[in-house]
């Protein structure tokens, strides 16, 4: 039994509820620039992200994956359309409301880790809690450190950790506040294939064992193969959607999408 499962069994985390949509978007359009030089990064995208599942967003470079994720996470404003997270309409939120939303509902995993260089691994992990002014739950933090496998490196600074270790620290950081949804943009984009596997397994475990909801942008079929559901984006539109698949199936679907 994994550390996380023990933790869940201890009853600290409530038992999974039936699947619900935690993020929903309707008719999202994003236009960069004006006039002749404009780019339509998203064209009327609507989607629902289900709770306790990992959703992968795939597509060729420039298809609008990152733009979609930034808008879903409230980092950017759509030109048209609405986004709801945990039932809250976010496009009309003030900066203070968005801040509260991020503290309670959103976790991020970045391609370039974005760890704070002057803090130790452990300090980086508990940072979201200290920012929110909450006391870290020691047991929970220990469990996370254990799970991501850097309990023995907790006092190291990011510059003293490998890329894979840094990304695992940043996953722990994204999980520590138990967000409603975790967004990851190319979390393995900066890692080699074997460390990528560890990181992906970790994300998968958090869905299976903690019931974490994850939205992951990737162009790596191996990564997408970990997902419960895969959305394909091309030219700013969702062009295809498949359920859990093998890497080979994903690759095939990708070729089909880009070949259109």
């Amino acid at each position, binding site marked *: 039994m994994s550390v996380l499962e023990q933790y869940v069994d201890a009853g600290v985390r409530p038992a999974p509820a039936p699947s619900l949509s935690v993020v929903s978007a309707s008719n999202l359009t994003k236009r960069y620039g004006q006039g002749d030089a404009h780019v339509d990064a998203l064209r009327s995208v609507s989607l629902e992200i289900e709770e306790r599942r990992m959703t992968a967003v795939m597509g060729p470079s420039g298809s609008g994956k990152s733009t979609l994720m930034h808008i879903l996470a409230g*980092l950017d404003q759509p030109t048209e359309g609405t986004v709801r997270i945990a039932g809250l309409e976010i496009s009309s939120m003030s900066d203070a409301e968005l*801040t509260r939303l991020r503290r309670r509902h959103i976790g*991020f995993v970045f391609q*370039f880790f974005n760890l*704070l260089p002057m803090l130790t691994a452990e*300090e980086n992990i508990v940072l*979201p809690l200290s920012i929110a002014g909450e006391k870290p739950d020691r047991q929970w933090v220990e469990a996370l450190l254990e799970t991501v496998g850097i309990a023995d490196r907790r006092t190291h600074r990011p510059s003293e950790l490998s890329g894979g270790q840094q990304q695992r620290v940043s996953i722990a950081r994204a999980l520590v506040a138990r967000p409603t949804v975790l967004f990851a943009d190319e979390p393995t984009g900066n890692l080699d294939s074997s460390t990528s596997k560890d990181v992906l397994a970790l994300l998968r475990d958090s869905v299976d064992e903690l019931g974490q909801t994850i939205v992951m942008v990737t162009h790596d079929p191996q990564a997408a193969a970990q997902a419960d559901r895969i959305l394909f984006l091309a030219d700013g539109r969702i062009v295809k959607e498949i359920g859990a698949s093998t890497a080979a199936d994903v690759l095939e679907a990708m070729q089909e999408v880009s070949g259109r």
Partner: protein
Amino acid sequence: MTAVALKGLLGRKFRTILTGLAIVLGVAMISGTFILTDTIHKAFTNVFNVSYRHTDAIIAGKQFVANANSIPTVPPSVLTRVRALPDVAAASGSYLFDTVTLVDRQGKTIANGGAPSLGFGIDPSQARFNPITLASGHWAQGPGQVVVDTATATDKHYKVGDAIAAKGDGPVKPYTVVGLGKISGVSIGGATLAVFDVPTAASILDKHGYDNISVAAKPGVSEKRLAAEIKPLLPPTAQVRTGSQQASHDAAEVTAGSNIIKYFLLAFGAIALFVGAFVIFNTISITIAQRTRELATLRTLGASRRQVLRSVLLESFVIGLAAAVAGLFAGLGLAKGLNAMFVALGVNLPQAGTVFAGRTIIVSLVVGTLVTLAAGLFPAIRATRVPPISAVREGAVLPRSRHAHRRPYLAGIVMLLGLAVIVQGLFATSGAGSVLGLLGAGTLLLFIGVALVSSYMVRPLASLVGRPARALGGAAGRLAVANSVRNPSRTAATAAALMIGLALIAFVATLGAGLRNSVKDALGKQVKADYVLTPSSQGSEFFPAQTASALGRLRGVEVVSDIRSDRANVLGAGTAVAGIEAATIGRVYRFAWKQGSDAALSHLGSGAIVDSSYATKHRLGIGSRFTLQASNGATQWLTVAATYHPPQADPVLPKIVISRATFDRTFPRPQDSQAFVKVEGGASAARTAELKGAVAAYPDAKIQTQAAWVAAQAKSFDQALNLFYVLLALSVIVSVFGMINTLVLAVFERTRELGMLRAIGLSRRQTRRMIRHESVVTALIGAALGLPLGVLLAALVTRALGSLGIGFHLPGQQLAAFVLLAVVAGIGAAVIPARRAARLNVLHALQYE
């Protein structure tokens, strides 16, 4: 969040320390000034507290005219009456802290800078009233004996039994040193002591009656009660103070000057802090820009704008507080340095244990921290505008301020406002305090305005001052000029800090040049003598009247016209008055008559020649009558005989000029302040030697040719100018820290680019040269902004001082020297950053993220 801010500072130690240094100097100046002036004050207070330790009451002459040459004495009859009082245990008539100059074996007065030459007449049998303690020998008894202070004896190699000369108000007289003494346990700085018995002191000082009567009360009688009992016994020319009142009165009188020194030095501390604020503002702005991504990441993790603001302000607070603490202690060293500077300028101050007052600590810490916080406020506000999405964008930069497009207008308004305040201060305000206040405030605004607009001037200025770099620096030079304009607002802010110091230096130099020229001009217009007789040392203002007569007896001397001077109360204010020899003055001095003519001189009688603007101010015309009250309280009626308008830059004669006969009749102990001499055949080396020989017997006086005298008068500003330069150098040093800072941060930011340049063949030497040229270009931009600004300010001020006859004179040579100074500052600032850039490991630099 607090931890993030603090750990961030620790992670950037070198940069944090450099940032803090910008404030350390300003704070050190403030704390050093307080420490120095408090210590001086304490030292003087010590001298007088010790001196009046056992004195319960002290009787002295009343001062009728502020700063007059003499104070009335207390008649001996008062001593008899005071002794008869039932509550009096003892009373003694004496001379305390009067003026007696010692004269060395070469006939030169022994004077240490501006320190006083003190003379005492003391009754050694009344030991309790005696401020002096004997170190060796015995007390002076009878004429011809003197006790001198141990410091002078050591310095000038006098021992008990040696002959020494001294002079009070009469001629120099010989004495034998019979003892050495000092004021017990306290330092008197460069002051000299000459202690006589009471009758000898009376004779050398040429006084009847005592300077002071010291009184001790019987046990159980308070100081206050004693003073109250004495009061009714006194004539109207005398007053009584308790011992402690007298001690603080004397100390206040002596330290009045140290308050001026205090505010003067504090002003330069404030300037250094202002420059430091620019540096801090710029440095924090740059570090914020470099941490855009980190700040954005914090926002994605849930940090609110307020938290970002607080964390940046916390950094400023910590830097400010740490720098203020460092500055506070650096002030201890600086106080010693300032003291050494005054000693070098010939001002020897007494010493006491260093006074480190609570006020010094509080003011230094509060000011240092607040200035840093204020400078960090704008960057902190900008930091809150970093959007969270910058966390995921490559090369994210700080968003431009929403008001950026309004900046040129704002700059214009601030500059115009500054100019308006300056003009208002200069042309429409009276009272030195408010003029200086407005001038300071206006200059501050002008600096801020120019700094705001300077980023728009960086490109054109860099292409101008970058010419030598491009021509001489090769590829490195061209890269340097390009680098200096790639972030104009940074270069501008860095240059603006240097601009302030250089502008003030150019201002002082231009004003000084104008002053020097005007004084030469003014003196040349007034005096047409061959030789000028003046007091010999800076400290003294007078020499005995016999000196001039001695010269007059020489063969070949055609005219000696001496000028008596003193202060008197006229029309309700203390005013300088001169007594002239009406028959001869016309041959050596040109009166610029307003009303009247040279004819007025021939029958001056009890008439007065009055400065025309003074006359206008007091509604005096020819025939108007007014009274003059001398320092002994005596009054004299005067009639205006003529008015004249001397050049205001340096009038040789004061606002009220009377005949010598009237002067000598009115003032107690008339003395000369100047004498003008005309000789047959004009000045020559032989004549100079002859006149010098004749003056040798009068150590208080000195003779010079008119040309030498004019040159010396014009040069007298140089010392003050040098003091200004030294103090302004502090601000320039602060701005050099700013330049170092900006370059270090730029090198850090361009790590990858530098690695690339090195990889494609830029040598270490070229790398250093590139950084150096960029630094010099920045410094020259500072000079290009600052020097014209300083000259402009000086032009405005000389315009306003036009009525005082001070003209504008462009000091071309000095300005060229300041440009050179800027280049040197630029090269100096580049040393550390250039070394850092050259040391970069090419491989690491390329991998740097």
